[in-house]
């Protein structure tokens, strides 16, 4: 009765309008609807609609169904999922604090990936930390990318010389940085080989990766980059050259630095040299430390001492009365990996030099445990640094503090004072959750005990992140 042709004719009629093309009711339904029925068109419509509702979907099963987000990594343990969701999504989620970084780092170390069903709920976390979370997270964060969208590099689980050019920019930079530590020449050669064909953002991260193990052999390549078409790359190359002993940029920076040093004598009975920084008139007092660290922090410590015609110990002694210059020296000591000197400077007068180091983007911390032990002396702190600074500290280290340093943190007066001031509601939950990321696994139980006395609104996030990190690290 209602065949395909009749359906088509009826549909065309109701779509165009029965006023223009009468519905062929008789033809379609035979005697079922009386020809003189004033509601014939309505009945035809109802029957057509019901017929349509019984039509099954024409779509056949797809030939194959391959996962859209493949990943070789193991999925996080089931117990971690609710914690991940509660910490990093929705109502209380924050994906830019130290908690998110620490979780991403822990997953990267354990080679774990998110459960696929959590990708949507953890969208912001995935976008922010895809490079640490594995191939599925990268594929998820790029699911809307088109072929014309730049930065569509694939995630390489195990990166080496054969596949490094296919990796994500951050992966490639990490690979080059790692290779620089063992074979600086080979790493530079790899970068040189692909440099011209890369886009500016990738060129920039590759140049920055060369900061590791910088040597005069890098100078010709870096000199060439001073003519790069991207200003950011030129700037980065210039920064590296300024750190390269013997380069014109380094000599120029050293000269500028020396010209800003006032040499005087101090002492009554025994005269000794005294050094003091002289600031440009445009630099306000509160800008001085940042200016000094960013301008002179990357100068090699030896060159600095030579320029002043003093030994390093003499320079340190001569800068005793200038707090900012002492901080600059601490930064230079850190860059030179002179952790003994760094520790001495911090203990004697530059207690908070670490703040300058973690705040500067172009200062690398090569050996986080040794650096932490030398630069962070919680026993000297009169009060805890704010949560933003502690977050920066984690972001620079990308790992918890070494156990002895963390032990000193938990025993420090500054920390205990903070715990005791909760009645006035001075600390914030983010402070405690950040500290939780800085404390290594072995010290989480003592920290839990300390936090137990706080109210739930202060300690909940910290306790949750410690539970989560325990689960991830045990996986």
């Amino acid at each position: 009765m209602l065949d395909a042709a009749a359906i088509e004719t009826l549909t065309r009629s109701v779509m165009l309008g029965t006023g223009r093309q009468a519905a062929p009711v008789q033809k379609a339904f035979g005697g079922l609807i009386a020809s003189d029925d004033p509601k014939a068109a309505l009945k035809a419509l109802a029957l057509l609609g019901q017929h349509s509702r019984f039509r099954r979907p024409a779509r056949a099963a797809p030939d194959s169904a391959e996962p859209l987000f493949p990943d070789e990594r193991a999925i996080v343990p089931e117990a971690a999922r609710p914690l991940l969701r509660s910490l990093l999504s929705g109502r209380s989620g924050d994906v830019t604090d130290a908690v998110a970084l620490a979780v991403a780092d822990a997953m990267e170390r354990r080679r774990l990936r998110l459960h696929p069903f959590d990708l949507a709920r953890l969208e912001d976390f995935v976008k922010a930390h895809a490079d640490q979370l594995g191939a599925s997270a990268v594929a998820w964060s790029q699911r809307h990318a088109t072929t014309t969208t730049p930065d569509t590099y694939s995630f390489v689980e195990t990166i080496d010389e054969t596949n490094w050019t296919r990796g994500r920019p951050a992966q490639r930079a990490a690979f080059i940085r790692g290779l620089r530590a063992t074979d600086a020449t080979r790493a530079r050669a790899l970068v040189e080989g692909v440099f011209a064909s890369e886009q500016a953002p990738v060129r920039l991260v590759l140049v920055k990766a060369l900061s590791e193990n910088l040597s005069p052999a890098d100078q010709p390549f870096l000199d060439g980059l001073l003519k790069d078409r991207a200003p950011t790359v030129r700037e980065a190359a210039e920064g590296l050259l300024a750190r390269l002993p013997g380069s014109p940029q380094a000599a120029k920076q050293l000269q500028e630095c020396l010209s800003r040093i006032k040499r005087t004598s101090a002492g009554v009975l025994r005269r000794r040299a005294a050094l003091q920084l002289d600031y440009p008139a445009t630099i306000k007092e509160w800008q001085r430390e940042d200016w000094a660290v960013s301008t002179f922090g990357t100068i090699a410590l030896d060159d600095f001492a030579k320029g002043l015609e003093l030994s390093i110990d003499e320079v340190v002694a001569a800068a005793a009365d200038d707090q900012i210059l002492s901080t600059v020296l601490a930064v230079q000591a850190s860059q030179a990996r002179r952790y003994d000197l760094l520790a001495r400077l911090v203990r004697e007068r530059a207690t908070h030099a670490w703040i300058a180091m973690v705040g500067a983007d172009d200062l690398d911390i090569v050996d986080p445990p040794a650096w932490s032990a030398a630069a962070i002396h919680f026993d000297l702190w009169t009060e805890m640094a704010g949560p933003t600074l502690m977050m920066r500290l984690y972001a620079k280290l990308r790992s918890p503090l070494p156990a002895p340093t963390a032990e000193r943190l938990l025993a420090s007066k500054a920390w205990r004072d903070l715990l005791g001031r909760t009645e006035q509601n001075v600390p914030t939950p983010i402070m405690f959750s950040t500290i939780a990321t800085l404390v290594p696994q072995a010290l989480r139980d003592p920290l839990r005990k300390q936090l137990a006395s706080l109210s739930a609104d202060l300690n909940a996030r910290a306790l949750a992140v410690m539970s989560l990190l325990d689960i991830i690290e045990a996986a």
Partner: protein
Amino acid sequence: MSLTLAKVEEIAPDQGSLSAARKLLNPRSWPVVAGSDAGLVWGECQGSGSQPYRVVISETDLGYKCTCPSRKFPCKHALALMWMRAEGRAIDTQPQPDWVNDWLARRRGPGTGRPAPDKADARSKVSIDAALEQESPAPDPKAQARAAAQRERNRAEREAAILAGMEELDLWILDQLERGLASFQSVAREQCGLAARRLVDAKASGLASRIEQLPATLFGLPEALRTDFLIEKLGELHLIAEAYRRQAELPEALKADLRLMVGWTMTREELLSEPQAPRVRDRWMVLAATQEIQPDKLRRIETWLTRLSDADGPRFAVLMDFVPVSVGAIGKTYSAGETLEAELVFYPSSAQLRAIIAQQFGSVTREGRWQAPPDDVAGALDRYEASLGARPWLGEWPIAVRNAVVGGSSDDLVLSDSKAALPIKSKEDDALLPLVGVSGIDAFGLWDGRRLDLKFAETPLGRWLPG
């Protein structure tokens, strides 16, 4: 189910309420906190007023009551009490105070009938209720008869108004047909609004609501599906109008369903006292809990349940609650994966689905993996078609499929097995995409005849729920 922090988070209407509740966790805010063995916890929370707010929660079914004037449900006081309970704080067991008993007696929640009065108490206690009972005058039979006659007149007037409204509806559809459905889309909102207003005037509010929602559904569909949708929906409206005119010829269940759909109501009490209404006691699992704001400014809260035994009778049920949007945010009472033993009473229908909980037995629990009934895709469609045959104006219908796979491209997904496939309605947050390629899925969703709105799936990777 003992309360958990995750459950408290789920039930909270918004983050602000949770944060406010967190500040009330200090024991000093609660001069009185006590509980009973029946899963009740109550307390008095000192607010800004001179009198503390009285708060009571029922752990069994997450019922709550607070005397504060907050427009959030649950309020921060109820949330704080739940939170304390979830954290396992020590709470003294004490006899329930009168105000808790009053609440218990008044509430209509599952499994909470008015508590049987203690006979000794009933004799000894002096109460206003008792005084009122004694003083209430004997009913006047004449007044009762007058009231009944008036109700009958009102009813007859409404029937006439609805029938007249149905005639107008037919004319309206004929007008649209004459002009053509191709041009209907450009005037759909205006025309449907007009038709809905006329039906409201004709006291057919259920049908009015159906028409008012039509444009939103229409424009939510891909272009390719809109023609069929319009033909189906406008045809369905005529079908309803015709059925209403000839309701005397319909089977009782279909007639009752039709009248409910058109706008006649059945109160909870009427349903509970309806002898023909099917009652099913079983274990039920929550597969989905959704909230949607209707054009009439009511928030429709749907809780989709599946029966865990394979006994005869309805496999699925939906609990529907309507709350004015103006009362503010509402948290979820049930969430997917929870199970409860309950007696459900189904509204009369030729395809039974909507129900209420007559009585709940025990607490809500969480159990392991759900196994879908042993239907393949074609079998699930057979069931849908049987229901559609029984109830021609069927809306979204629950479908469960065992051992299926999701495949296709990101914006054209299907749930399929070796024989058939169901197109899946895409989600804005792409939450469906990780299901692609996962085989052996037991899936539950709502099928509207064109697309499946996937709501719940058990997979080898674990349970999938929409974001």
